[in-house]
Structure formats: structure tokens, C-alpha cells
């Protein structure tokens, strides 16, 4: 890795870590009662401490972790499918994950705000299975990854159809509708400590496996034939990367619901600031995704306070605007 002045991946990583820390501090300070710096000396009562420790801290950490998972999933998807517009949303894996969760909730009647370990793992597992099914369905419909346009179209089709199935489940089962509604809009409001643990436990293996395949992703950018000629085992590498993407997407969707565009935008922002290989791009995209979703979470608590905006609405608006800007900036 050749450091270029002003474009060093390490500098960018440092900035993104600092941004994450600053946003966690903001996340501790912002709530339905307005701004309140926890370390200012005026009201250190126990109720406030409980709010900080049991609600705001896990929520902020969880939002960062979910964003990091989505950023990682987006970077993996864009490298794997050799397509700068690939994203867990455009490939059907996010809607697959949400359908998996909806099916599980409909079958068991679990509230999605479950705070126990076992239900959390069950929801994450259902989301992972759904995400995997969504991607595989998209790949089957697109008949492989060669045709960029066909892949994106198949992803959109799968996303719409699976989304419709989720809506159908909602209509049939009004008792889970309320919990699922917030979930479909994307919300960071349910995040507790068990969610933080599940997210962290998903992020570590996803990042490790993705990093181990970073060079395969670089080689894949030169084309399949070239990657094969360089000794990249294409089949196993692809399978593992699809699994990583499904795990990252599923874990994030299981906890925060459908939060659009973080996975698409985070790798783009990193590439704007530096030109890294995947070994740096993958962790940087995770850091950027975490900062993005946490920033959106803080903003969603603040803009309509004391009411709360679903964070998915905010990221959809911001992400859509970014895509529009991208579209006008350079021809796709």
C-alpha cells in the first residue's frame, strides 16, 4: 500500500474513528428530552444515569454496529458483483432478510423488541437465511453475475416481490403489524444490549472472512478470467463472500429493519476520499457505514424532538439525494 499525501487510508481510518466516537458522545446527549450533556454537573440523578446506560448507549453503539455491517455488506457486494451500484437493497438480500424476520414473527408471535438472547439469535438467523435466499434468488433470475443490467433488474424484482410478501404477512396478522411496521421503516429505537452483542458477534467474523478474501476481490476487479489465471478459487471465494454479505445484511436488518442506502453510500464515500485496495476499503467502509447510520440515528432523534423520525426514512431521503447527485456528477 503506497501512502499518498492526503490520501492515506490510515488518515481516513483515524478520521472515521474520531467521527464515530464524537457521534457516540452526541448519541448519549440527545434524547426525547432534548440536548443534555451527561458529563455536565447539573443533574446527575439515577434516572438519568439509567436512561444513559440502558437506552442511549446501547442504542448508539447498536446503530454504529448496524451501519458498519451495512457498509461492509455494500463494499463486499460491489466488489463481488463488480458493480459500483450493488447494495444489499438492490440485490434483494435486505428484503429477503426482512421477509425472514416477518415469517419468524408471524410463526412465533415474538415481539421484535425482544431483549433476551435466544429470540435475538433466532431473529438474526431468520434474517440471515432470508438474506441468503434473496441473493440466491436474484442470482438465479439473473443467470449469473456477468450481465450488470440483468443483475440489478433481477435484484429490483426480487426486492419488490419479497417486500410484497412481507406486506401480505402484515395484513394477515394484524397483531404483529405494529412491531413490524417500525421495523419495515427502519428504526434504531429497539436496540438494547443484547442487540449490541449480536451485532458485534456478527461483525467480527464477517470482517475477518471478508478481509481474508480482500485480494480475491481486487483480482476480481480485473475480470473473472484474470482472477482465475492468478489462482483465485472463484467458486469457493464467491460462495464465502455471498455468505458474508448475507450475514452482515441479515444481522443488521434483524436489529434495525430496512435501512436503505447506507451499504451503497459508505463505500462510495471511502472511494471519494482515497483509492484503497479491498484490504483497506472493507474496514473503511464499515467505519464509514457506522458513522453514517449513527449520524442518521442522532439526527432522527433530534429533528422532530420530542417525536422521533424512523431512521430508515432519513437514510432513504439522504441516500436518494446522494444517488441523484452521483448520477448527475458522472454518467453511470
Amino acid at each position, binding site marked *: 500500500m503506497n501512502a499518498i499525501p492526503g490520501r492515506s487510508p490510515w488518515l481516513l481510518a483515524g478520521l472515521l474513528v474520531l467521527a464515530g466516537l464524537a457521534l457516540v458522545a452526541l448519541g448519549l446527549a440527545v434524547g426525547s428530552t432534548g440536548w443534555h450533556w451527561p458529563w455536565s454537573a447539573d443533574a446527575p440523578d439515577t434516572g438519568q444515569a439509567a436512561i444513559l446506560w440502558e437506552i442511549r448507549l446501547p442504542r448508539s453503539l447498536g446503530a454504529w454496529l448496524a451501519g458498519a455491517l451495512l457498509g461492509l455488506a455494500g463494499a463486499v457486494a460491489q466488489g463481488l458483483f463488480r458493480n459500483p451500484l450493488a447494495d444489499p437493497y438492490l440485490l434483494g438480500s435486505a428484503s429477503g432478510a426482512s421477509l425472514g424476520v416477518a415469517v419468524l414473527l408471524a410463526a412465533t408471535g415474538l415481539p421484535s423488541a425482544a431483549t433476551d438472547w435466544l429470540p435475538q439469535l433466532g431473529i438474526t438467523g431468520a434474517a440471515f437465511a432470508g438474506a441468503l435466499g434473496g441473493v440466491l434468488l436474484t442470482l438465479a433470475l439473473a443467470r449469473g453475475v456477468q450481465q450488470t443490467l440483468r443483475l440489478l433488474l433481477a435484484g429490483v424484482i426480487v426486492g419488490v416481490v419479497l417486500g410484497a410478501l412481507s406486506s401480505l404477512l402484515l395484513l394477515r396478522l394484524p397483531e404483529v403489524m405494529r412491531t413490524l411496521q417500525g421495523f419495515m421503516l427502519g428504526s434504531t429505537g429497539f436496540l438494547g444490549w443484547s442487540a449490541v452483542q449480536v451485532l458485534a458477534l456478527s461483525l467480527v467474523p464477517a470482517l475477518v472472512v471478508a478481509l481474508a478474501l480482500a485480494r480475491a476481490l481486487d483480482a476480481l*476487479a480485473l475480470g473473472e478470467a484474470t482472477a482465475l489465471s492468478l489462482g483465485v478459487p472463484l467458486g469457493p471465494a464467491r460462495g464465502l463472500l455471498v455468505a458474508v454479505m448475507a450475514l452482515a445484511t441479515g444481522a443488521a436488518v434483524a436489529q434495525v429493519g430496512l435501512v436503505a442506502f447506507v451499504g451503497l453510500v459508505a463505500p462510495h464515500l471511502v472511494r471519494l476520499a482515497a483509492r484503497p485496495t479491498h484490504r483497506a476499503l472493507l474496514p473503511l467502509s464499515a467505519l464509514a457505514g457506522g458513522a453514517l447510520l449513527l449520524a442518521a440515528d442522532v439526527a432522527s432523534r433530534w429533528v422532530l424532538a420530542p417525536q422521533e423520525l424512523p431512521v430508515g426514512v432519513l437514510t432513504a431521503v439522504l441516500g436518494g439525494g446522494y444517488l441523484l447527485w452521483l448520477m448527475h456528477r458522472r454518467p453511470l
Partner: protein
Amino acid sequence: MSTALSAPLISASALSARALAVARGGRPVIAGLDLALPAGRWTAVVGPNGAGKTTLLMALAGLLPCQGEVRWLGQLPRDLGTRGRGRLLSWLGQGEEGAAADLLAHDVVMLGRLPHQGWLAAPSAPDRAAVEEAMRRTGCWDWRHRALGELSGGERQRVLLARALAVQAPLLLMDEPLAHLDPPHQADWLHLVRAHVATGGTVVSVLHDLNMALQADALVLIDQGQIHHQGATDDPATHRALEAVFDQRVAVCGVDASWVVLPAQRAR
């Protein structure tokens, strides 16, 4: 070309194929092809559009599922392992790098060292030396810190050529390597190929430019998935076969000690 491939000939040839059959998209492109290419030579593969040149080259490089037997320096590729194959044969394709626009030129060339590196190991000193040498030889060392997408077509092609050279494999297979190169850099490419062959390496290239192809040691003429002719470039029989495979619409003429291809004069 009708000589039976005896065992000693196979082990002496750099690349050989026996009863090679390849289908693409359900359509047979090559059916029952036998070929033996000598080591330490540059062979150019030419033929009309759609004759199966790229398919043949990819099949020889082990990049397409095919029937029949391909041997590299007498060995079966499947016995070498993925990394062993990568060290023995270097491939330069065409128009496949669209997703690499954000990679820096130096990082692209370093990918040529993949077969020599452990999966997680950092680049070694020999890796860095090989990358610098390859980039200096193709004249792209000065823009090693620029992204591939910021380069012109010819500059990008030189980076990709450096990537193929950085593998330092004895077998070098290139599909249309001259695409986007201006005449001076085409001449540079010629010297690179000759230098590779002079050190015992073997080069096989698909070329559209017949004048460049006639600079090679030998030609393989492909038509409709079959070998129409194989022979030395200075052999008059090869020249007649070249004119025949292009429907008598080109003519090979001697100029000084070299040969050029010109459009044939219409009889009518």
C-alpha cells in the same frame, strides 16, 4: 499440422492440446482440435472474426471448461494446483478491467504477484522488485499512483501488460495485447515479447494486426474453430495460407527482410 502428437513431442512443446472441444453458450466453437506450440517461441494466432481465436487461447490457458487434454510444459494443469497454475501461465485478456477503475496502477500490477504470495502475507521485497521492473519495462512507473480509471486507453493497456509481466511466468498468453497502443508502444511491446522469448519464455498472442502477427516466429491460422495452417512466418506456404484464410482479400508482400500484409487488388 497433421503429424501425430507423439509423447516426446508433447513434453518438448510449451503448450499442447489434444482433441480439444469447447462450447460457448451451448454452441460448439472448437471441436476436436490438436495443437502443439514449441517452447521459447512467439506464436501469433490469427483468423477471421468469430473464428474462435479468443476461445482457443482461453481454453489453452485453462480459463474455460473444455473437453480433451491441455498440457503446459508437458504437465496437466489440474496437477499443478491453482497457485502453481498461476505461476506457470500468465494471462492478459481484453476489456475485462471495467470494475478496477478505482484501483491504483501500482496495486493493479501487484495483483500479478498473487500466485507468489501467501493469502494474508504482505508483499515481499522480490514482489516489489518484480512490480517495479514490470512497470519500468512498459513505461508506466511514473503513474503508479494514479487510478486505472484516470488513465487513457493506451496507458491503461500498459499497466495491464505490466500486471501480466509481473507474474514472471514462463508462459505468457495475450488476447489482443495491442489494443489502444500507439505505434511507438506497439514497437515497445514487440521488444518486450522478444526479450521474454530470448530468455526461454513462450508467448502466444491473438492479434488482429496481421503486420504485427508476421513479426512473430510462427503463425497459427484459425478458421471456423479449426486450425487451417500452422507454420513459420517466413515460410511462403504460411503466406499463401494466410491469404486463403482471409478469402484472398489480403496479400503478403516482402519488404526488405520483413513481410507486410496489404489489401489485395480486386481482379474485377
